[in-house]
């Protein structure tokens, strides 16, 4: 395994502080890992939302994990462009979200106006659900309710 792959695996496996069921690789927050000839490591991460309070924790976690693996010369950069989108969430991440009780974001091929698929209830899979509130317990979530089983659940908003 190359150093880049090793670091990518270590950093990518770090859990998201607000949704620990998912890793930062699942969420698409980990963007790039580079190692130069002198052994200096650069890791790029991208915030999901502008004010995401978890970002500082993620940056510290990445730095510590990469150092602990013996790569002591590491810089973690926060890269804003291109802007993070839910399209970057992995299929494994979507499955984990649903198991965790959060309806995953619908895939939209970068065109948010094409969102016509229903949001499914993570408990009973019904497509008959409606939005209760635009905003939820974190910036990336809305609150919905299932018309079939009555479950109230968070929905990871398409972004």
């Amino acid at each position, binding site marked *: 395994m190359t150093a880049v792959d090793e670091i990518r695996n270590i950093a990518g496996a770090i859990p998201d502080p607000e949704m620990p069921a998912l890793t930062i690789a699942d969420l698409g927050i980990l963007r790039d890992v580079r190692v130069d000839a002198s052994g200096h490591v650069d890791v790029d991460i991208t915030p999901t939302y*502008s*004010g995401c309070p978890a970002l500082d924790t993620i940056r510290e976690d990445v730095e510590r994990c990469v150092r602990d693996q013996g790569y002591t010369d590491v810089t973690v950069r926060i890269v*804003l*462009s291109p802007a993070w989108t839910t399209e970057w969430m992995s299929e494994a991440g979507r499955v984990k979200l649903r198991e965790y009780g959060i309806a995953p974001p619908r895939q939209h091929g970068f065109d948010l106006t094409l969102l016509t698929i229903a949001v499914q209830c993570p408990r009973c899979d019904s497509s008959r659900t409606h939005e209760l*509130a635009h*905003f*939820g317990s974190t*910036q990336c979530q809305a609150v919905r309710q299932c018309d079939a089983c009555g479950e109230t659940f968070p929905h990871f908003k398409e972004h």
Partner: protein
Amino acid sequence: MVAGAAAVYTLRLADDCLVLSHRLAQWSSRAPTLEDDIALTNVALDLLGQARGLYARTAELDGTGRSEDDYAFMRGEREFVNCLLVEQENGDFATTIARQLLCSTFQLAQWQALTTSTDAQVSAVAAKAVKETSYHRDHATDWTLRLGDGNDESHRRMESALAALWPFTAELFESDAVAREADALGVGPDPAALRPEWQAYVRRVLDDATLVVPESTWTPSGGRQGLHTESFGYMLAEMQHLHRSLPGVTW
């Protein structure tokens, strides 16, 4: 040429975001419903994140290398260049919703224009903020419709909120040498250009909400020159208290 126009321009954008963020954060644990307590503080958090990105860029442009905290906590009232609308007190829930409708509609149009900024940092912040701010505008629109087209009491409150805040909207679209220079440099739009889009959207929502667009001949201004309304000083005193009392504090 205006020396440092780009830095003043980004500072105005940043101050608008920070001050509105702080006002909305004052609703924490006080909103009429749990959902809206969460919604208003979520909007506040988005705005705070937007402000941070813009302060970081301003520090590079003005060459001072100041930290985000320096801008937020170590400047006096006269050094803040936010518009007067964002600093207006929360009032009742209708007042906050009216302010949100007027502000988020303006900011969304502005962010959309800023996505093509020649300044890479500004366009990166904007690309993110467009998505966030469209949620802010949706939230304000939904509540404007419910309150305006609700019962007599909610309609009356929405009407008086709009009447109180409307005069402050003129300043949003004021042009000056800094704005024209930023526009010429491609950093961002002259706010005067955003008026038609803002007006069309706000008028349509108010119409649908059975509310009348207020008329006002009083057009207070001065925020961009650091001249603020009375309540802003009290807000800053509270916001900056810790940093003023314990200079250099970290946590």
